[in-house]
């Protein structure tokens, strides 16, 4: 049973290596290989929910050596939620990419890199010590930077270079912080390194600044968001969907939450700093997005503001706030992947991403148009879609905690989101066509299926949000709420 955790790391690596070989044998083989292996992973992530009692912890020691000395993989509520999201969204996106990537030449390399990225994300959420977390984070970062540069045009390489440099500096900040935590506590295990003594306040502040800058850059939180509006639109659409949908959350938000709550320990100044960062992201995203004409760039800017909601909710450090933040993480993964996929479909059919040159696509592309409408309404927080509930919880939690200004920012940010997504709908789907649309056809079946699936998930996650909360979100909230007592609950000792 515990071996299943190792499979989440080994299977994608094997698929990454095999798809390079398989591509030279038969052209469709890499598709089949990666989609089937990620299907197995997504199903086993779901199976783990069904087979185990809610909130239980699964532990796997590599080579049988227990925690402080050996390397271990830990599956608790928070990492389980991330695992389900990563593998589920990746599966749907890879089905989409089977048709979409036909236009690119090196399909085997694409699949290899995507599987490496999935390995990095799975490993980062499962790893039980800081150095494994860092190494998997690096793996995912480098693989995603290669995917950003996949088109090898001038814009894409520039975006990739910017992403690599800023991401590299962030990684080094994280590494320095890890080195300092190791120096102070003498341990790298997430479960043991939580005894930073109060006698070194200066070192603790320094570690916190490094961690917030490092993981903040990975998560694209406001003052560190500069790379995201370049990097995410440059990648092929399925990769953009994965970057905005799961990568920034797995590498940034998850890792930040995990270390701040379970290793450093939450306190009022940290909570305040996170809330300010979150609110700043909401404001920055709301200012950046309405000015964009490129469809994917606008969605990437919207990601900055939505990440702000998640960080604001998690930073509130009340049970309601954390629940709202994690629920928003869950919903935003689905909606933003859907939106990037619809943008990819529009680009696939028309070859155009500029909203000013589009229009009148509703009749030609009914499935894409309606999925995009669902995504736009869902991301803006219109009931009955999932994001409505998560934003509502975040606003209520802000009011309960007495932070009325943050509640006001959250509400206004949501209205601005609705305005610029309404503009996207008007310009690209409802308006009279700006050019000739007679040659535009609906996209192939595989792409329609994955978009409609995600659109249905948006709707279902809103209608059955109580089930999502009790089965998926609550175990994660419990893990976070344990805080520094985390080590005892995992039974590592």
């Amino acid at each position: 049973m515990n071996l299943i955790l190792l499979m989440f790391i080994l299977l994608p690596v094997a698929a990454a290596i095999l798809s390079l070989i398989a591509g030279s044998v038969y052209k469709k083989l890499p598709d089949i290989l990666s989609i089937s292996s990620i299907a197995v992973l997504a199903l086993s992530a779901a199976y783990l929910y069904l087979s185990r009692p809610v909130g239980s912890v699964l532990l796997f020691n590599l080579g049988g050596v227990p925690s402080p000395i050996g390397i271990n993989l830990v599956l608790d509520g928070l990492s389980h939620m991330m695992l389900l999201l990563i593998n589920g969204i990746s599966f749907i996106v890879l089905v989409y990419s089977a048709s979409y990537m036909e236009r690119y030449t090196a399909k085997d390399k694409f699949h290899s890199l995507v599987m490496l990225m999935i390995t990095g994300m799975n490993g980062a959420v499962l790893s039980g010590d800081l150095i494994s977390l860092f190494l998997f984070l690096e793996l995912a970062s480098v693989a995603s930077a290669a995917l950003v540069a996949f088109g090898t045009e001038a814009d894409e390489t520039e975006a990739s270079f910017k992403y690599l440099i800023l991401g590299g500096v962030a990684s080094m900040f994280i590494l320095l912080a890890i080195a300092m935590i190791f120096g102070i506590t003498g341990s790298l295990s997430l479960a043991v390194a939580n005894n930073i003594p109060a006698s070194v306040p200066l070192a603790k502040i320094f570690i916190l600044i490094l961690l917030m800058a490092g993981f903040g850059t990975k998560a694209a939180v406001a003052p560190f968001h500069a790379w995201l509006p370049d990097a995410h639109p440059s990648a092929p659409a399925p990769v953009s969907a994965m970057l905005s949908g799961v990568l920034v959350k797995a590498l940034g938000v998850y890792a930040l939450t995990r270390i701040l709550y379970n290793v450093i320990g939450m306190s009022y100044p940290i909570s305040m700093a996170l809330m300010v960062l979150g609110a700043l992201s909401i404001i920055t995203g709301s200012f950046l997005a309405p000015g964009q004409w490129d469809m994917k760039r606008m969605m990437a800017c919207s990601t900055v503001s939505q990440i702000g909601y998640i960080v604001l909710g998690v930073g509130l450090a009340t049970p309601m706030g954390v629940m709202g933040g994690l629920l928003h993480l869950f919903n935003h993964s689905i909606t933003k992947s859907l939106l990037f996929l619809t943008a990819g479909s529009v680009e696939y059919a028309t070859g155009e991403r500029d909203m000013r040159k589009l229009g009148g696509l509703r009749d030609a592309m009914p499935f894409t148009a309606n999925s995009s409408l669902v995504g736009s309404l869902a991301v803006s927080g219109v009931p009955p879609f999932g994001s409505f509930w998560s934003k509502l919880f975040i606003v209520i939690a802000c009011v309960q905690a007495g932070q009325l200004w943050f509640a006001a920012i959250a509400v206004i940010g949501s209205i601005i989101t609705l305005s610029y997504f309404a503009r996207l709908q008007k310009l690209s789907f409802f308006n009279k066509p700006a050019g000739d649309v007679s040659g535009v056809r609906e996209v192939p079946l595989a792409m329609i299926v994955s978009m409609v699936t995600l659109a249905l998930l948006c709707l279902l996650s809103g209608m059955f949000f109580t089930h999502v909360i009790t089965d998926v979100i609550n175990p994660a909230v419990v893990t976070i709420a344990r805080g520094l007592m985390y080590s005892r609950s995992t039974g590592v000792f």
Partner: protein
Amino acid sequence: MTEYLISVMLFLIGLYAVSVKKHLIKKIMGLVIMEYSACVLIALFASRNDVVQVNVQYIISAVLVSGIGGTLMLAAVAVRLYQRHGTFDTGKIRSLRG
């Protein structure tokens, strides 16, 4: 104490090179310097007597190997940029300015 300060200064030199220098290769070198200084810091902390919980040589070699991967990726992208623009100067490459 001096050796800790020196490794932190090394980190800051790397940070300076990444953030201030305009040359793409110098930026990459700055990043490598930052990485090595962090590794030196880990080794220094581990050399104290009270820290024996982990195998530090494996950790550092793993970090260095992952760093080589990142550096190779950066160098490849830099070469591609040079082929497109004929320069390593970030001031002359449109979207990297500022």
